[in-house]
């Protein structure tokens, strides 16, 4: 499954749909980081509204991806975590410290805009 990376204004948006396989994720990481460099994006938003379950693998991956993006000097926001997913992440100890999280796409974008100033 190829996960598209969309661009709105100067932000890259990744909407993860359903279950991710190992290959998908590494491809996504690669793709996203390349795009970041090419487009000089000002922020990345990862939308997990459609994700109903996470496991430790996916949680770690999410954390790592966000950390990589941050290393490239771009703010990241993760939005749309369902309550059950949030509980799982906290229980796994993968509660994305240092990464901004927000309720939904709209609020995530608003936050990213404030980071540009």
């Amino acid at each position, binding site marked *: 499954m190829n996960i598209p990376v969309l661009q709105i204004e100067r932000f890259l948006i990744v909407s993860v749909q359903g279950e991710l396989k190992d290959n998908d994720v590494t491809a996504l990481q690669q793709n996203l980081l390349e795009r970041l460099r090419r487009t000089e994006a000002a922020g990345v938003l990862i939308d997990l509204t459609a994700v109903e379950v996470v496991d430790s693998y996916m949680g770690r991956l999410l954390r790592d991806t966000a950390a990589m993006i941050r290393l490239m000097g771009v703010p990241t926001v993760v939005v749309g*975590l*369902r*309550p059950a997913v*949030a*509980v799982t992440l*906290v229980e796994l100890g993968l*509660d994305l410290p240092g990464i901004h*999280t*927000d309720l*939904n796409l709209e609020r995530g974008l608003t936050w990213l805009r404030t980071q540009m100033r």
Partner: protein
Amino acid sequence: MPDSKVAWNDEELAGLADVLDTVERHPEIDRQPAVPGTQGPSLNPVLREGLARRDLTAVFDAVGERVKGLLRQDVPFYQVVQILHDVTDPLYKALGADYGRDLARVLRAIQAFSKFKDQASIRAGEVFAAQRAQLVEEEQRKIIRELSTPVIPVWDGILVMPLVGLVDSSRAKQMMEHLLNRISLLGSRIVILDVTGVPSVDSAVADHFIRTTRAARLVGARSIIVGISPQVAQAMVRLGVSLEGVETYGDLHSGLQRALSLLGYTVTREPQ
């Protein structure tokens, strides 16, 4: 436990055997009244077996199970009992037709069926009472649970969750789920956990406060904890629990003021 060991003497068993024969000979007797979808497999074979073993325990157990099933399908209790009583008239008629010449035998059968009906009704009543008690208990537990974890939207974007009394692990879990669902439903930005009413914490509960604030952050709400009592503060420090990254205020009042100012509200009082 229900007393299914009520003794059945030879006379009664013989009478019941006649009843069963008659029921099987006249299929119209067993035709259950129209409560849609409630007709289960016939209990006649179970009764036949019980008669052969001269022990009806299994028969009444099966009756109890059937009643349980009917109640679970929301068949009213009176209808459940009615099913049994509806059999009576056609049965007595059929008994008259089958053994009419032998009045003693008809009488024996009627007495046996009457006893059977009584015992089946008693069993049905017991099942009903037990189920009702269980229902009430579940309902109460649910109400208590909800009462003990209220989440109050005090302002646009601000939720207050007052905690009262001892928090145990199951309640803490419940509380967290409830809170997260509310945050995600209302799109709240700030959650104020008011622990004024919590007399003491252990490490599990303290840990839970932290998890709750972390999970709340993941769904997009910032947490403020208010009302930590001296005892709780001492306990938390001794336990080595740090609420780093979580704002704390002495009372709900200050917490609410902080929340309002975080959201850009200013409260002013008009001169009287």
